[in-house]
């Protein structure tokens, strides 16, 4: 598992590839969100405006005139948001890879990259999704945004801690322990932390009774899909770029050895 020093790529090279993979993954996630999610966002905004107009008594409310960014701009902003967010996540993945590479106990760079991306998908996306499923516009009370933001960040941290606890649980049995015992240890470690988080953190129940259930469900699936596309393509893209970097470096080292 020990890579020779001259073959291990430096942090700047790894970081650059993480950022690039993240940018591409973010654009792909944006494309998925545009196709699968935007019709649902539009439908939810239509419900929101209907309610606003009913409240204003059908009068000409000034709502449309003071919009900072129109709907077309927001749809373009979707790609900006996912691209920037993806690049940030790619940089974090590359940094985690650099700091944790030797502790992952695998000789395969691809497995290390995919394992870290999978851990992030599980801990920072799936665990929060079940506790605080995302909501389309027209759902959610603006007055509770502070508490909801704090609780959301707490469950993201707890999700990542849960994945870490799963790894600790997997490695806890002695070296000769059977594989099923390690797997059981991983499940127990993971679920223990998730259960604590789900019980301790407050529940949010803000969906209006009149909001269409199928629209809510379709939006949530589209939102989950956007995150899954982001992390799957980020993991695969980062692994691919790392593998090309490794191949190039070993060629260079071989040539240097021949020349020397």
């Amino acid at each position: 598992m020990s890579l020779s020093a001259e073959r291990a790529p430096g942090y700047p090279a790894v970081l650059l590839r993480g950022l690039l993979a993240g940018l591409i993954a973010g654009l792909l996630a944006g494309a998925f969100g545009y196709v699968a999610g935007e019709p649902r966002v539009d439908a939810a905004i239509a419900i929101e405006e209907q309610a606003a107009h009913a409240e204003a008594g059908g009068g000409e409310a000034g709502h449309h005139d003071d919009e900072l960014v129109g709907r077309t701009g927001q749809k373009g902003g979707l790609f900006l948001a996912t691209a920037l967010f993806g690049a940030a996540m790619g940089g974090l993945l590359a940094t985690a890879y650099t700091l944790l590479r030797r502790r992952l106990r695998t000789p395969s760079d691809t497995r290390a990259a995919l394992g870290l991306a999978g851990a992030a998908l599980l801990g920072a996306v799936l665990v929060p999704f079940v506790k605080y499923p995302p909501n389309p516009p027209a759902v959610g009370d603006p007055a509770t945004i502070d508490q909801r933001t704090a609780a959301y960040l707490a469950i993201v941290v707890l999700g990542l801690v849960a994945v870490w606890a799963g790894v600790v649980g997997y490695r806890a049995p002695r070296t000769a322990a059977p594989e099923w015992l390690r797997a059981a240890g991983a499940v127990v470690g993971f679920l223990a932390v998730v259960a604590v988080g789900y019980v301790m953190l407050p529940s949010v129940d803000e969906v209006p009774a009149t909001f269409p259930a199928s629209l809510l469900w379709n939006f949530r699936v589209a939102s989950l899909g956007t995150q899954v596309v982001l992390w799957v393509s980020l993991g695969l893209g980062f692994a691919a770029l790392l593998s090309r970097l490794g191949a190039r470096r070993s060629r260079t080292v071989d040539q240097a050895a021949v020349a020397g």
Partner: protein
Amino acid sequence: MPKVQSVHPVISPAVSTRVLWTALAVVAVLLLMAYLVAFDQGAVSRSGMYLHELMHDGRHLLGVPCH
């Protein structure tokens, strides 16, 4: 009683102090970037709503709390 296993250092010796500090600085910048996309304006700060409105659909679809 299982014997205490060897303790792995938090940071592998292969990561130099210089790389560690660079990594921390990079993480700070990247978290700021994610914060601007997902949480500033409308969620954490009330300094205006331009970023919030511009990234509005992305925020909803990335699953972060929104109004």
